[in-house]
């Protein structure tokens, strides 16, 4: 399957993402999930970004709401708009999972 996963929390209370597999997987960071795109807790990238074979996106509105400029995010992550997320859902992926 082609799966778009939404993460909206910084402290996650599930480990579903780590276990799920997809032929094509995108992780879209929204809400407090965007902190995964920028914080380096203990000097390290968020473990979320180590999910292999995955493309990462972060909603720029939610980054900027929290005082994070898109220029400062991890190079693994692409800043996207609401319109971009619509295209990802409708064109690039078939199913969604808001964890």
């Amino acid at each position, binding site marked *: 399957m082609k799966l778009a996963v939404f993460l909206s929390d910084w402290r996650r*209370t*599930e480990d*579903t993402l780590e276990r799920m597999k997809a032929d094509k997987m995108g992780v879209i960071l929204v809400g407090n999930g965007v902190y995964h795109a920028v914080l380096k807790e203990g000097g390290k990238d968020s473990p979320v970004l180590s999910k292999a074979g995955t493309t990462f996106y972060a909603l720029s509105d939610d980054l900027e709401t929290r005082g994070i400029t898109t220029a400062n995010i991890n190079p693994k992550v692409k800043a996207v708009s609401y319109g971009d997320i619509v295209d990802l859902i409708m064109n690039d992926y078939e*199913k969604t*999972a808001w*964890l």
Partner: protein
Amino acid sequence: MGAVKLLFVVQRPPYKNENPRLALTHAIASQTAEIYMDEGDSVVPTVVFVGDGVLNVIKGQQAMKLYGVTSTESHIKNSLLIDMPIWVCKEDMTRLGLKEDQMITDAEELGAELKTKFVSFADIQKEMDSVKHLLFF
């Protein structure tokens, strides 16, 4: 469209949030959804408990006696009664130290024939692949 498969995935414990319970009530609503659908269409739900969600399936819940609220156990048993598949992830039970005899395995007292199915995450992954939509709670 014919029969459309849906997978309801409960990842979090009961009672702290209403949503695990709403997973069950929404899945049960598939029984009456035909009034809104075209002839021949239907939805076929499966409810699976993974991660800390397996805590929803511990038996002997006294929510009605103590708080006057229907227990999640009672919703699970009603689901079995209408033949809705209830799956529980075995690896997560093991991790949390839960054994099958602590869990809701059936609803025989209600006359349900279907039993809870204890499955591996690999089985759940296969189901995720095969359904049309995923609904995580």
